[in-house]
């Protein structure tokens, strides 16, 4: 079991108010699943994503990633988890503007301590996988939204992470480009990656094979997407 979440709760204090963002969440995600997490704003889905992505720790409960209890890790250990196991993809790409595509993709490997030759090789491979082999020296400002998101995806892939965690990946793109990105995600899923998608758009969520609804800090529903028109049905072995 890749991800196991048991009785997870998260609350925090905002000013004078105590906010109970997540209440007693229980969830399991297997390797190579393609999951969409949906919910209205304020539902706690962002908080949940932060915890999944090791950017935050739960107040109570357990988060086991590949058997390791993430909730009790030190700051450095969490950083290592993010580096090696989590591939983030953000709505507004979050590339470093002063670096070119290749350098952006290499960055996680620099923090892993990978030597420069191997780094370059792996970064080139990742960029090739997303179809940007001819754009490696371009900076953000020289690329379209779709291309930037591809670079971000390449950056997420380059460390061979356990999960790809995508937060509204098509939110800043027009529908045609958005479709292209979703096609790419499908391919990555077929490659064997585990994909967790956070979205508020049903159309995007329909690409996944399982949809989890979060509302008021709790899991409202958790269903397989049997009727999946946009993705070929993928049979797990």
């Amino acid at each position, binding site marked *: 079991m890749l991800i196991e979440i048991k009785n997870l709760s998260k609350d925090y204090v905002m000013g004078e108010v105590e906010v109970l963002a997540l209440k007693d969440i229980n969830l399991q995600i297997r390797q190579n699943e393609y999951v969409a997490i949906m919910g209205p704003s304020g539902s706690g889905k962002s908080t949940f994503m*932060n915890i999944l992505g090791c950017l935050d720790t739960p107040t109570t409960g357990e988060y086991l990633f590949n058997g390791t209890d993430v909730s009790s890790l030190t700051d450095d250990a969490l*950083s*290592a988890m993010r*580096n090696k196991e989590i591939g983030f993809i953000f709505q507004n790409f979050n590339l*470093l503007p002063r670096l070119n595509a290749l350098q952006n993709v290499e*960055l996680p490997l620099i*923090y892993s301590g990978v030597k420069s030759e191997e780094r370059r090789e792996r970064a080139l491979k990742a960029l090739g996988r997303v179809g940007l082999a001819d754009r490696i020296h371009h900076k953000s400002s020289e690329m379209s939204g779709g291309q930037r998101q591809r670079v971000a995806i390449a950056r997420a892939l380059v460390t061979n992470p356990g999960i790809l965690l995508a937060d509204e990946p098509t939110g800043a793109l027009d529908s045609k480009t958005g479709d292209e990105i979703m096609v790419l995600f499908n391919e990555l899923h077929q490659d064997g990656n585990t994909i967790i998608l956070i979205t508020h758009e049903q159309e995007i969520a329909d690409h996944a094979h399982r949809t989890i609804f979060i509302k008021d800090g709790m899991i409202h529903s958790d269903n397989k997407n049997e009727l999946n028109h946009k993705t070929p049905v993928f049979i797990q072995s």
Partner: protein
Amino acid sequence: MLGIIFGVASVITMLSIGEGAKREAIAKYQDLGVNNIIIRDKKMTDTELEEVRAKFSQGLSPEDASMIKEIVPGVVRIASQAEISSEAKYSDKSAKSTVIGITPEYTEMLNYKIERGKFIDDNQYKKELKVCVLGAGVAASLFRSEDPIGKMLKIEDQWMEVVGVLKSKALFTETVGELAARDLNMDVYVPLTTFLGRFSHENQLASKIQQITVQVDGSDKLEEASKVINEILKRHHYNNEDYSIVVPYELLQQEEKERQIYNFLLGAIAAISLLVGGIGIMNIMLATVMERTREIGIRRAIGARKSDIMSQFVTEAVAISITGGIIGVLLGVTLSLTVSLFTDITTYIQPYSIFIAFGFSVLVGISFGYLPAKNAANLKPIDSIRYE
């Protein structure tokens, strides 16, 4: 960065000025002899001289010298000298010079280096030979490119054979106590015995000799020796203060003390400049960190640890301060050279001062970059990513 540049440049310039002054002083006192006590015959008006003679003092004399040699503890050697101002003549040229009658111990006591020929020896002294050794300036004026050795010079009405020429010496640019400023290169040396026999002072009442130089065997003996010398002379001169005792070492110490105050001030100025520079860097870095909050969040999200962020920003701070340091060093060196070229002030740039100044700039970068870097590292990734 300006603060760093200015701070480093001023450290280097001030240090070089200080070092230049120190070396000048040492050279000056080196010539007078660091372990020496110099007793000078006081310059007095005719009336004063008459008074003093009436009170039984004969002025500085060879007897004073022998008493000092016998009684004062720690004396290694003693040299007496008599002086008159005169003109030295050679063929059609003449040079105004000070003719100094000296004893053979002279050579060993003072820093005189011979350029050609030899200095006056015991034999010439004993036999009262009419020989002379010329200062570099006199030789140049009278002989130009000719070899002075063996030539005959006329001083007063005496013919003297030149047996040696001295190397050029640093000039006294100021009066040291009673030692009047004088161009030492215009001195002509003859044996004291010859002098006393053949030259006479203008004024009949003048003392026989003008200076006694006493060398002791260690600077720790100077204080006691000069006290004893003072007692001896007081008694021998019947309480007439017609002499003065100059201890170059004490003067050197004095100047050293003054210089320390100067150095302290320089240090304070430099420290303040560097502090100001450091604060400037800190402010730049704090602003930079704020601007790059989002970037820091992204880096953290993809796996940078707090220490990675810290070293990134400390390195950037050090880069700024090192750049400032390099410019400051260049500026400081240029300033020092300019000052020594266009003013009277000598400067001396010591390599270690460049390293120190540079080292300080690195230190400033690290110290003042630390806080902003720590701020950067402690930003919460979740919040930072959302920061606009």
